[in-house]
């Protein structure tokens, strides 16, 4: 039977049907749902690893141990996992290993839009790129066979538009693949220079074999149309091409590394004009140019952002999409923002008031950089906050550290915040680090992590105790506060900033979206007589409190307010009261 699935569900299904028994991942949009779907299948082990490097290493071990293994992460996660990836390419696999890289052209939820097809070339891996959910399932299943046949990890590269689009998938049966025997083979698995030199030769032989394979692979196919224009494309771009240029000839590449030289030359030789349609980097285009094939590509199409049918129409056909109705009004932008009751709000409100320099990190709390809280100075990658704060202190002197903090989420701290904290202690910095512990990985949709004490399957496990970790690495000043208690939080900050040694403040409160977070019991209203319209509560940037321009008064929206009480604490006139009130 056919079923609608998002690409990520289809990927999980493909791995299941191909007999995968182990899966490891760290969450990250747009890849997160892959492991969440995979864990639902019977007969598989699936885990959240603390970060992507560990996820891939668990994957390496499972593969060498003989199991077909699925590893999934977002594009920047592959950077974290790059070290094992490059060398796992040398050792090769035992059970097939498929690494799914979910890229994010257009940066819907990411800090950059790197194109991970590039990893294929550098790490010498085959890279498959499906164009819809059915292909996602089929390609992942095939990737396991290729992995074993060519003794290589295989990357399946998808983009947000594939990962999060639903289309029809025909489900198949699971193939039970017996665990392969494990045979000790130091020359293959211990990458001493002497062994690695020999393995590199094998890798080059493998790439040569793959170059022959891709000429014949059913994943690369020509759909002949008019010979005026021949489009070479892959992934979701293929769908946009079919949508707006149904008449052209198309070479659809399902494998984007290595590229099929002969197939491409044949195709290019039979059409008048060759156009390469690929989002982000000119990976295919540059190879064609290197082969001396004249193409159009990034000279007419952008290297930035996501493509769309209307973009192709405009750039390739010279037709501008018709907007039937145009409203003559400025529409204010609507950036994402912290939810009502979000525990992060108390922290950023306080950081803003204290005018501190804030080295930030990645998570829901990065929204603290936006107005009106505007209390973040830097965000680079996961885990960067603590090292950045230490670097600033070392560059600008100890006094600087008394006006600066690092803020980092609980999941992010476990992912990559512990090593830089060791650096602060080791190199005698004085940084104050705030761990924003909302007891979940909120940004990506509430995944468990080691400090929640729950596994991917929601079963109990040993809880990583954040206080103990901080003390164990040598931080003496470790304290825990409630971020929705503004006085307590500010006092803690004053004291820790003054201390001439490293300190960690754990601001602990469950995410307001977690059922049982203890919110939603109280309700508040604005006493319209007492309110003088000072807007202090509005400066919290909470959708639960809004401003009525005509009356110059604040109001509370009972549908949105969850009763966290922050506005009550910031109001100097006691104009916010508990109860139902009367509007």
């Amino acid at each position, binding site marked *: 039977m056919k079923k609608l699935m998002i690409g990520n569900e289809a990927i999980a299904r493909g791995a299941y049907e191909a007999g995968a028994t182990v899966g490891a991942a760290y969450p990250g*949009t747009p890849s997160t749902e892959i492991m969440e779907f995979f864990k639902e299948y019977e007969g598989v082990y699936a885990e959240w690893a603390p970060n992507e490097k560990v996820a891939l290493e668990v994957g390496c071990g499972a593969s060498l141990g003989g199991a077909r293994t699925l590893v999934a992460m977002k594009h920047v996660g592959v950077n974290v996992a790059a070290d094992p990836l490059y060398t796992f390419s040398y050792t090769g696999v035992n059970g097939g290993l498929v690494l799914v890289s979910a890229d994010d052209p257009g940066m819907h939820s990411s800090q950059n839009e790197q194109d991970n097809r590039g990893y294929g070339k550098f790490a010498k891996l085959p890279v498959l790129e499906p164009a819809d959910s059915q292909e996602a399932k089929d390609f992942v299943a095939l990737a396991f066979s290729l992995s074993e046949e060519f003794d290589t990890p295989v990357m399946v590269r998808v983009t947000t538009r594939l990962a999060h689009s*639903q289309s029809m998938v025909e489900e198949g049966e699971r193939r039970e693949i017996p665990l392969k025997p494990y045979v000790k083979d130091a020359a293959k698995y211990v990458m001493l220079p002497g062994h690695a030199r020999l393995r590199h030769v094998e890798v080059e032989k493998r790439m040569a074999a793959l170059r022959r394979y891709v000429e014949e692979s059913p994943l690369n196919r020509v759909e002949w149309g008019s010979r005026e224009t021949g489009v070479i494309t892959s992934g979701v771009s293929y769908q946009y091409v079919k949508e707006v240029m149904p008449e052209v000839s198309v070479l659809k590449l399902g494998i984007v590394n290595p590229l099929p030289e002969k197939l491409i030359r044949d195709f290019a030789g039979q059409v008048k004009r060759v156009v390469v349609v690929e989002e982000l980097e000119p990976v295919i285009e540059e190879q064609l140019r290197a082969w001396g094939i004249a193409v159009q590509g990034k000279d007419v199409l952008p290297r930035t952002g996501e493509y769309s*049918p209307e973009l192709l129409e405009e750039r390739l056909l010279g037709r501008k999409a*018709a907007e039937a109705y145009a409203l003559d009004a*400025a*529409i204010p932008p*609507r*950036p994402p923002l912290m*939810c009502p009751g979000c525990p992060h709000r108390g922290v950023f409100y306080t950081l803003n008031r204290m005018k501190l320099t804030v080295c930030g990190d990645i998570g829901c709390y990065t929204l603290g950089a936006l107005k009106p809280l505007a209390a973040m100075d830097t965000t680079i990658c996961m885990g960067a906050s603590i090292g950045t704060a230490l670097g600033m202190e070392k560059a600008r002197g100890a006094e600087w550290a008394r006006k600066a903090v690092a803020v980092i989420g609980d999941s992010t701290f476990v992912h990559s915040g512990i090593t830089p904290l060791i650096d602060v202690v080791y190199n005698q910095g004085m940084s104050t680090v705030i761990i924003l512990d909302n007891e979940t990985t909120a940004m990506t*949709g509430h995944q468990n992590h080691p400090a929640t004490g729950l596994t991917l399957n929601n079963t109990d496990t040993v809880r990583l105790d954040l206080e103990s970790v901080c003390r164990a690495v040598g931080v003496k000043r470790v304290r825990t506060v409630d971020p929705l208690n503004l006085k307590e939080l500010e006092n803690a900050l004053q004291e820790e900033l003054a201390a001439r040694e490293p300190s960690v403040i754990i601001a602990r409160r469950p995410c307001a979206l977690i059922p049982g977070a203890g919110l939603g019991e109280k309700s508040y209203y604005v006493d319209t007589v007492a309110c003088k319209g000072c807007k202090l509560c509005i400066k919290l940037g909470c959708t639960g409190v809004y401003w009525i321009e005509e009356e110059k008064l604040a109001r509370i929206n009972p549908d949105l307010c969850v009763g966290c009480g922050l506005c009550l604490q910031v109001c100097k006139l006691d104009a916010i009261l508990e109860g139902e009130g009367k509007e």
Partner: protein
Amino acid sequence: MNRQSVTNIMIVGVGGQGTLLTSRVIARVATKMGYDVKVSEVHGMAQRGGSVVSQVRFGGKVYSPIIKKGDADVVLAFEKLEAGRWLGYLKQGGLLIINDERVDPLPVMSGETRYPDDIAERLARLVPRTVVVDATGMARSCGSARAANIVLVGLLTRAMALPAELVAEAIQEMVPAKVLDINLRAFETGLEYGTNCRLKVNLA
């Protein structure tokens, strides 16, 4: 509905309003009707109160998961400002459904810009086939403001002449059991409203 051509529905709103469920219900119905279907969703950061859009396309054969500008048969807006933001996707003669709900975005809350108060009226003047409906209020009287998305599904069911029994079936399959009653009431309310405002949409 012509079985060959593709029908495009754009569902827009504010992250957290339940647009995802609405698009999934409609997609499920289209599947039950035997169409090829594609749905594009927004997960991740925008779900934290940002502007979100999900897109449903169904017909004989669907390629792109996203709708072209000027090509949506219906724009269903859960919030007024979002109706204005995504208007460019509506096709000539298309249907604009606006939930009469205002959610201030950050730049408005912080006083940097103003909310265009009369936006629903202006849209209704510009687009001949506009319906402005207080779905949130109607949902509240069904038991929860959160069921506004299903009130809108009911309205859309009538507007597009979708088979109501299939839609009800899809809702039953997709809504958690403990809020199912509220949602079925919300669906009925939306259907009734849709019947009374006598919408006829010819999706050719």
